[in-house]
């Protein structure tokens, strides 16, 4: 890590988060962009159970945070990803970025959520009235990440 690296805060765990507190922690240096993902309400869906590979999750997310900091002039970034059982409407993930200008904040935020989707080792099990089903990976997520050129 060089001295130029911005502040990065990464949290993985079952606890909910407060988007307003996360945004406030990103500061007010010019531009703050964020993404918050929720469990979509779908017919028959009772809850999602999120499982992960803790040692690898930490490393993958840290690696992509470093890459975002190398590609864009970020002042801060925050990533929160929940695990465990989450009901429809619950928050799952937060990615927030701060920079002096909007383009870097927007692009870094999109890059981070796109890579989180295809590289971070999380798996979602849908709990439905008629049984449980693992969520399948989507090709559109691969395509979204590929536009970042790696």
């Amino acid at each position, binding site marked *: 890590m060089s001295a130029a690296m911005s502040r990065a805060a990464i949290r993985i765990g079952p606890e909910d988060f407060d988007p307003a507190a996360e945004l406030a922690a990103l500061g007010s240096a010019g531009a703050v962009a964020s993404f918050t*993902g929720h469990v979509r309400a779908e017919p028959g869906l009772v809850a999602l159970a*999120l*499982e*992960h*590979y803790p*040692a*690898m999750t930490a*490393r*993958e997310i840290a690696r992509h945070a470093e890459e975002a900091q190398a590609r864009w002039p970020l002042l801060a970034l925050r990533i929160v*990803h929940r695990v465990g059982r989450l009901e429809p409407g619950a928050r*799952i*993930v937060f990615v927030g970025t701060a920079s002096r200008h909007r383009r870097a904040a927007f692009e870094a935020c999109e890059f981070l*959520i796109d890579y*989180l*989707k*295809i*590289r*971070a*080792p*999380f*798996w*979602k*099990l849908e709990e439905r009235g008629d049984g449980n089903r*693992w*969520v*399948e*990976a989507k090709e559109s*997520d691969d395509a979204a990440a590929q536009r970042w050129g790696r």
Partner: protein
Amino acid sequence: MGRAVNVLYFAWVRQKTGTSGETVEADAATVRALAEHLRARGGGYAEAFADLARLRAAVNQEHVPFDAAIAADDEIAFFPPVTGG
């Protein structure tokens, strides 16, 4: 001569093998050879490893292709394509 590696399973791979992890002694030089060794155990392992195209692998917490080499004491994980975010 076999080598002992630490193998982890996640999501439906864990459900089919019936365990989240174990130490495996196998004469396997690559991730693919280890997967084939596990498939040959039959039962839930044969189901879990029936189609390697449905699986992904990591060695020491990094994504790798199935042709990646493995060494004694490595941590090797098998799992479906990830679905976080």
